[in-house]
C-alpha cells in the first residue's frame, strides 16, 4: 500500500513535469490561436471541476455558474486595471470609490475574485441549498440572472452594459495551468478525503446520510462555497484572458457550456471532466468553421450563424439520451487502471 502511494506520487510528479515541458514547448512553437485554445481548455477545466464538485460529487444541481464567474471576473478586472485606466474607461458615470482606486497584483486579484464568489455562494447557498433537485437549479439560475441584471444597472461599479475593455492580459498559459493544477489538486484531495465520502453519501441518499449523523447542510454549503470559489477564479482568468467583459457574456449559455463538459465527462469523474474539457473546448473552437464562410475552389459556402450551437446542443442531447453516464461515468483513470490495462494486454499476447 505504502509502495503504491510512493509510486503514484513519483508518477504524478513525472506527469506534471512532462506537462510543464510540453507547456514550454507549446509556448515557443505554437501560434497565438492555438495558445488561446490551450488557455481556454485550462479555464474550462477549472470551471467544470468546480461544477462537478457541486453537482457531480455533492449532488446539488446548480445552474448559477455564470453568476459566480461574473462576480469573479468583475472583481478581478476592477483590481488589476490601474486607476488611471479605470478613469478613462468609465464613460457612462465615473467609478465609485473604492472601485476607482483599488489596485492589486494579479495573484491577489484572482484570490479575492474567488473569495468574493465564495462569499456570494455562501450568501445564496444559506437560503437556497435547503431546496432539492430542480428547484435548486432554477433558484441558482435566478441568482445568476439577478447578478447579470445588477451588472447592467450599476454603472458606477461595472460600467453598465458597456462592460470593461482592455483588461490587462496577465492570464497567460502559466497562470491558467497553475490555477488549473491547484483546482485539480484541491478537488481530488477533497473528494478522496473523509469529507468527500460524506459528500458522496449525501448525494446518494440524503436521509441515510443524516441518519448517520452527517450535518448535511454544512457539508453541502462548504462544497458549494468551494465550488463557487473556483468558479470565481475561472471567471477572473477568463476576463483577463479575453481582456473584455460585459454583462452579455454571462448569459445562461455560459453555464450551459460548463454543464455540458461535466455531463459529457461523467458526473462525479475528475478524469472524465478533464477529457471532456479538452474535447469540448476544441470542438467548440473547431465548430466556428461552420459559421464562417468557406471558399472551396470556385464554390463559395456562406457561413451559417447559429449552426455551431445547433451541433453543440444536438451533441448534448445525444449524450443525455444515449450515454447518460458520459464518457467516464463515475470511474476514474488512475495509475492502477493504466497498469491493469497493460497487464491485461500482456497476458493476451
Amino acid at each position, binding site marked *: 500500500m505504502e509502495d503504491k502511494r510512493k509510486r503514484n506520487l513519483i508518477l504524478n510528479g513525472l506527469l506534471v513535469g512532462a506537462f510543464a515541458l510540453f507547456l514550454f514547448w507549446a509556448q515557443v512553437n505554437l501560434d497565438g490561436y492555438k495558445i488561446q485554445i490551450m488557455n481556454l481548455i485550462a479555464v474550462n477545466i477549472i470551471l467544470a471541476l468546480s461544477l462537478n464538485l457541486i453537482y457531480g460529487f455533492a449532488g446539488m444541481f446548480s445552474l448559477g455558474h455564470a453568476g459566480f464567474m461574473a462576480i469573479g471576473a468583475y472583481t478581478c478586472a476592477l483590481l488589476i486595471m490601474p486607476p488611471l485606466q479605470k478613469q478613462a474607461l468609465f464613460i457612462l458615470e465615473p467609478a465609485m470609490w473604492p472601485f476607482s482606486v483599488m489596485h492589486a497584483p494579479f495573484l491577489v486579484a484572482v484570490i479575492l475574485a474567488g473569495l468574493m464568489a465564495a462569499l456570494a455562494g455562501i450568501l445564496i447557498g444559506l437560503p437556497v441549498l435547503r431546496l432539492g433537485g*430542480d*428547484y435548486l437549479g432554477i433558484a441558482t439560475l435566478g441568482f445568476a440572472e439577478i447578478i447579470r441584471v445588477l451588472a447592467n444597472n450599476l454603472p458606477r461599479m461595472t460600467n453598465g452594459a458597456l462592460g470593461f475593455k482592455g483588461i490587462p492580459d496577465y492570464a497567460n498559459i502559466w497562470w491558467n495551468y497553475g490555477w488549473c493544477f491547484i483546482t485539480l489538486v484541491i478537488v481530488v484531495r477533497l473528494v478522496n478525503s473523509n469529507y468527500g465520502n460524506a459528500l458522496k453519501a449525501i448525494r446518494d441518499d440524503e436521509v441515510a446520510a443524516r441518519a448517520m449523523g452527517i450535518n448535511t447542510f454544512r457539508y453541502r454549503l462548504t462544497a458549494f462555497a468551494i465550488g463557487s470559489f473556483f468558479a470565481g477564479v475561472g471567471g477572473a482568468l477568463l476576463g483577463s484572458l479575453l481582456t473584455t467583459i460585459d454583462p452579455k457574456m454571462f448569459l445562461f449559455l455560459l453555464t450551459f457550456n460548463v454543464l455540458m463538459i461535466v455531463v459529457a465527462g461523467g458526473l462525479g469523474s475528475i478524469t472524465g471532466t478533464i477529457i471532456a474539457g479538452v474535447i469540448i473546448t476544441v470542438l467548440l473552437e473547431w465548430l466556428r468553421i461552420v459559421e464562417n464562410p468557406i471558399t472551396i475552389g470556385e464554390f463559395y459556402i456562406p457561413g451559417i450563424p447559429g449552426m455551431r450551437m445547433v451541433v453543440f446542443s444536438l451533441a448534448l442531447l445525444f449524450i443525455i439520451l444515449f450515454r447518460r453516464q458520459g464518457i467516464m461515468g463515475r470511474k476514474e483513470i488512475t495509475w492502477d487502471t493504466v497498469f491493469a490495462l497493460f497487464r491485461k494486454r500482456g497476458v493476451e499476447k
Partner: protein
Amino acid sequence: MSMAMFIQHLFNALTLGSLYALIAIGYTMVYGILRLINFAHGEIFMLGAYFVFWGVTLLHLPWFLAVIVAIAVTSLTGVLVDRVAYRPLRDAPRISALISSIGVSFFLQNLAIVVFSAIPREVQRPGWLVDIIVVGKVRILPLTLVVPVLSFLLMLGLLFIVYKTKPGLGMRAISKDIETSRLMGVPVNRIIALTFGIGSALAAASGIMWALRYPQLQPVMGVIPGFKAFIAAVFGGIGSIQGAVLGGLILGIMEIMIVAFLPTLAGYRDAFAFVLLIIILLVKPTGLLGEKLEDKV
C-alpha cells in the same frame, strides 16, 4: 398619477399578465404530470410567433388561417419534442430530463437563428388592433382589450378539457400517480403527448399575441418570457392550472405597476421575477394554490 394613466397601465398589465398566464399553464401542466421543468417551453412560444408571420408574409395566408395553422404546427412540435427528447428518459433520474430540455431549448433557439436569422424582424400589425380608442381621457390600444378576452376564452376551453372530458380525467389521474394510472388502463404516453400538445398550443397563442403586442420577432424572444412564466407557475403553485393563471396575472400586474410607479427601477425589470422566485421558494415553495407535494426523494 392620473386615473386615466392608471387605467391604461391596468390594461397593459392585464395583457402582459394573461400572456404570462398562457405560457405558465404549459409549464404547470407538464410539471404536474412529469415533475419536469420544460426549459424548451419558451422556444415553443417563439416558434408559434414565427410560424404565423411566415404564414402571412411568405405563404400569403389570411390572418386567421395563419394563426390556426401556426398553432397546430407549434402544438405538433411540442409533441415531437416530448417524443424525441423526454419520453426516452421517463425512467431516468429527473435531472436527466431537465438537462435534455435545456439541450432542446438551445437547439430550437439556434435552429431558429439558422433558419430565421438572428436579425430582429418587425411585425406588421393589422390596423384595427392598434388604432387607439379614446374613451374620455383614457387612450386604449384595442389589442390590450382583445388579448385578455381571448386568453380568458382559451383558459375556459382548457378547464373544460381538463375537468369535463375523458382525456382530462386521464391527465388529472396521471398527475396524482403515474404508475397507478397506467395500471388502471390510462394510456399514459398518449395523455402526456396530449398535454404537451395543449401546453404548446397555448404557448403558441401567447407567442402570437406577444408578437402583436411587442411587434418584433427574435429567436431569443422566448427566453425571458419563458423564465418569467415559469416563475409565475411556481408562484401560483406548480401543478395547478388556476394557480398558473393567477400567478401569471399577478406577475404581469406587478411588473407593469412597479415600473409605472417607480420608473427608476425600470432597469431592474427582469430581476423582479427572479427575486420573487427566490422569496417564494424560501417562504412557501408550494405557491399560492399548490397542493402540498410530498417530498419525492
